[in-house]
């Protein structure tokens, strides 16, 4: 028998050996059960490593793309932004924030201990303007998060310096309006919006424009008010000592901070992220309801999967159908993660294969990735 080949088994397993050497190892493996078993064991370790789950908190992968995008260019807002009710909520929040701030103007500055629970975050310059001007967009979950202090390290500082500077900048004094071309997914955007934002299509442009216009109006009103308030507040703060000014910062940030630091948004907040402004309102409501639903038991997980399937069937012609079909596959995957039941794996495979068989599947790679995750 030739010499053992233990030192080359890894490279053999990885198909990284030169062909002559590979042939020699192959030959040896045929006659040496010891080396063959060792190779099996190395392969089993690799396979086992691939089954180790990598699951961050709920909602993480829904928010990450938006957070990356926001760091590259803080988005004013997207056409598929929050529905109008979130603006109403934001306006209420605005009042809640502004009323005490305004009152403070005629009262001595209260000690910091009175501040509502402030989530720790980076210091924000020009706090009054910042917190006020940001309120409407805080309704969107896909905002940069204020990282927890234990995660704040030197590398972060470097990152912030390199690319995060925009995130750290104070918000402009007026609320930005959608950029031309992104608001309605017009002709120039049609190609990419087909891939990226199924809700932004020409067919839905009018509704999106209406939403954008309404939001613009509200935003302008809010901005005007914010400007007025911030001027008042600047006066108040200028009159305070520098220490008091420092303590005022977290107070004014407080109402907005929790929304930013919580990327695993609770269902209610998450529903605001549903692509909106473009599909039939009934579909949109169902979409958001499903997005907000969480399964706590195997039966609930299966029910959720069925609900996504039903929605996918019902909206087959909707521009959002592709996304909904893909979410149905995700729900099937989630069900199987939940149950570990081979029947649920079969269901997942069936859904995934049906999806991949479509010529118009835009999220095929994601679905293939899911299949790979479970076929390992």
């Amino acid at each position, binding site marked *: 028998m030739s010499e053992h080949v233990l030192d080359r088994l890894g490279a053999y397993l*990885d198909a990284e050996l030169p062909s002559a050497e590979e042939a020699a190892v192959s030959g040896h493996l045929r006659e040496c059960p010891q080396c063959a078993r060792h190779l099996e064991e190395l392969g089993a370790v690799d396979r086992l490593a691939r089954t180790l789950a990598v699951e961050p908190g709920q909602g993480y992968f829904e928010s990450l793309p938006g957070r990356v995008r926001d760091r590259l260019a803080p988005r004013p807002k997207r056409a598929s932004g929050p529905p109008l009710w979130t603006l109403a909520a934001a306006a209420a929040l605005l009042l809640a924030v502004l009323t005490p701030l305004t009152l403070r103007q005629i009262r001595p500055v209260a000690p910091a201990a009175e501040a509502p629970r402030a989530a720790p975050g980076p210091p924000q310059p020009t706090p009054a303007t910042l917190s006020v001007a940001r309120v409407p967009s805080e309704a969107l979950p896909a905002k940069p998060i204020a990282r927890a202090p234990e995660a704040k390290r030197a590398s972060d500082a470097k990152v912030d310096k390199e690319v995060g500077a925009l995130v750290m900048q104070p918000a402009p004094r007026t609320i930005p309006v959608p950029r031309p071309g992104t608001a309605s997914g017009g002709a120039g955007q049609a190609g*990419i919006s087909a891939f990226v934002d199924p809700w932004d299509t020409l067919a839905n442009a009018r509704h999106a424009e209406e939403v954008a216009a309404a939001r613009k109006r509200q935003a302008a009103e809010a901005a005007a008010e914010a400007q007025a308030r911030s001027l008042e507040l600047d006066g108040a703060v200028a009159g305070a000592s520098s220490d008091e000014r420092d303590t005022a910062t977290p107070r004014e940030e407080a109402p907005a901070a929790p929304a930013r630091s919580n990327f695993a948004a609770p269902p209610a907040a998450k529903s605001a992220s549903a692509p909106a402004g473009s599909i039939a309102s009934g579909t949109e409501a169902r979409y958001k309801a499903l997005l907000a639903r969480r399964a706590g038991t195997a039966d609930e997980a299966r029910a959720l999967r069925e609900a996504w399937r039903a929605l996918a069937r019902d909206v087959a012609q909707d521009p959002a159908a592709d996304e909904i079909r893909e979410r149905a596959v995700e729900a099937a995957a989630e069900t199987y993660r939940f149950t570990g039941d081979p029947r649920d794996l079969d269901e997942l495979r069936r859904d995934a294969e049906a999806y991949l068989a479509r010529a118009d599947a835009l999220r095929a790679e994601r679905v293939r990735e899911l299949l790979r995750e479970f076929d390992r």
Partner: protein
Amino acid sequence: MERRSTKPVSVAAADPVEADLLAKAQGGNLFAFEEIVRRHQRRVYGVALRIVRRHEVADDVAQEAFIRAYQSLASFDLGRPFAPWICRIAANLAVNHVRSPEAREEALPEGHAEMPAREGGSGPLDGVLEGEARRVLQRAMERLPVEQRAVFTLRAVEELSYREIADALGISIGTVMSRLSRAREKLREAVLPYLGPAAARARGDER
């Protein structure tokens, strides 16, 4: 047994949708890049988490990897697959972080496991045995020196070629091979008690 090919299982450059998105992103279209992030985020986060072991850090690494990729996108060859490239960036950032002085101060508590093992499933191992084997492997991976953990992750999990791993970590292919070999031996020894029957079943289950 079947060996894996060195060809990455990543999105091939031939994927026209991906190529189109990348081309648009090169032109500054952030919507397109957001979709690219959506497509690759699990993999990038997975690479980062397996190396840095903490969610908060993995999150930072994943974001930073995508941001660096975007900033370097102009030099990216659209004829090449994106996945190995972004994985390399993430791995490089993750290893650099773990090597950094501040990372040493945030050592993981004993028994810490960011990655809960998935019970059951359709793998070569079954049931209780599989769950236990995963836990043991998880702990053994956490104990590996970061350089070995990174090489093992990139090869065994992400299936990058030795050349790609060498490029990602700035080391020679010989170093890749020796680190990988040491990592695999340690991990094999750790899970050996579970591998006898498992390996036997694996032969039957091998697709």
